[in-house]
């Protein structure tokens, strides 16, 4: 069920290594919502976008990190709960909303925290 209203492009590499390219992404949608609506493996979004569960964790492509920006304190606290898979370019997908400046964004879905 890809949204067809927008014209922004996003590339997501899912947790199995498969690449999903969306070129009709609407402004305002979060990466968690985009991933969940399209069944991108590894994006669960359990808490519904509340920045409260870290099940929509992505690594932002290095070239995009500056535009996407750093997590705030609340988001960092959640990422710290999956510290074993957290990296410098970690973000929660629910906290990244698509805007024209992010047209072309590339992210990789992070693996679940370890056993």
């Amino acid at each position, binding site marked *: 069920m890809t949204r067809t209203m927008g014209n922004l492009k996003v590339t997501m590499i899912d947790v199995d290594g498969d690449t999903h390219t969306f070129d009709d992404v609407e402004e305002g949608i979060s990466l968690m919502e985009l991933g*969940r609506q399209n*069944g991108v493996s590894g*994006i*669960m*979004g*359990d*808490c*519904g*976008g*509340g*920045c*409260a*569960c*870290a*099940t929509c964790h992505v690594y932002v492509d290095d070239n995009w990190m500056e535009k996407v920006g750093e997590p705030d*304190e*609340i*988001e*960092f*606290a*959640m990422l*710290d*709960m*999956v*510290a*074993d898979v957290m990296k410098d370019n970690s973000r929660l997908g629910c906290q990244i909303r698509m805007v024209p400046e992010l047209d072309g964004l590339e992210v990789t879905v992070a693996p*679940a*925290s*370890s*056993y």
Partner: protein
Amino acid sequence: MATQISQDRTSERLDLTPEQEGLLEQGSLADTTIQARPHEYYTAMRHGDPIHYDARLGSWLVTRHEDISAVQSDPVTFSVQHGYSEQQARGMRDEFEAYLREHGGGYFPDAIMSDPPYHTRIRKLMEQAFTAHRVKELEPRITEVVRGVIAEVIAKGNGKCDAVKDIAIPVTIRVIVEQLGLDHGMEDKISRWSVAVTAQIGAMQSRETMLQNAALIAELQQYLIAKMKACEESPSEDMISDLVHAEVTNADGTKEKLTFEEAVSLVRATLIAGNDTTATAIGNLFYVLTTRPGMAELLESVVDDERQLNRFIEEHLRNEPPVRALSRMTTREVTVNGTTIPAHAHMLLVYGSGNDDETVFPEPRKFDITRQNLGRHVAFGGGPHRCVGLALARMEVKVAAREISRQMKNMKLAIPGSEIRYTPTVATRTIESLPITFEKR
């Protein structure tokens, strides 16, 4: 994301000691001794028979972390709606329902305890109220509430209190009273109502106690209905008013108002869910602070470091999860980790055991705030039914921990540990009363 469970996955069963074998044969989660001190029973199940049929309860107990995760990610095969409904006033459900229709203004099925796709739209509505960022805005006010409650206890001047009845329960009730816009001075009633609602899923009621609890629930519903009718006429700035006037968005984008029945059930669920469980977490915190060597010192050492304090709280929720087990019901015959469960069977996801799974959390009984995978604990469940109020719960427990550490010291249990009573229920692990002594810091 709902994923259908994989039926060909099996993981190794471990050999049990003769004691563990005996425990599996004789034990039951319906046994109040096991409810109070459950870890050995959990370990025996988790190692030897991870999907264990508890004949006395008539429920399949899911005890390994991997299986709990798999089950809760498939809300279609494992129905919350049927599981919750079956567990409610188990064996006396018709009488319970009839009682509420006659005395409680109606029977209002829990709209949030439902299955997709209906659940999805109700859930979305509730999520908006509980994001971590909205909850953060509440922190200064909640800090005031907690300070007030602890100050009252200290002001008594005798260095004694019941940490559960004088602190844990009043704190959580005052927070929810403000959030929902209920009346002050109702705290005792709200506490009794909460216990009555939770008892309906505890699987431990006789007919007599079921009816006593039903009478309290009827009273609660009558109170909420009157409040909600008043909000219908004149809206106010609180969550009851938000829910009375709420619209849900359907999958096709159209909007629909909640029915009054749905709204009553959601106000009731918010009142109860955010109350008993959070109070239990704070009561458990006092328990570990007063009984485990080094815990009070550890808390003191992290209390001014937000990151470490967050880790302390998360490890506490893993180590002493307030919710022990919640229900599911199979909608078809299904094999989970090598065990075949028939259709329409009742299951309990035993979070208390999942959080102790040594394959995920090495040395699970150790309190270790440096764990790198703390976020994997299942104290809040997981999947599409993960606790919607989790950010608020975490914050309340964190603020309580901070204020306890800043205002109280030398806390000691005032009764022998063996005399601590737990609420008889399979649903939570709740200390009923915890007399302590302390000094003002």
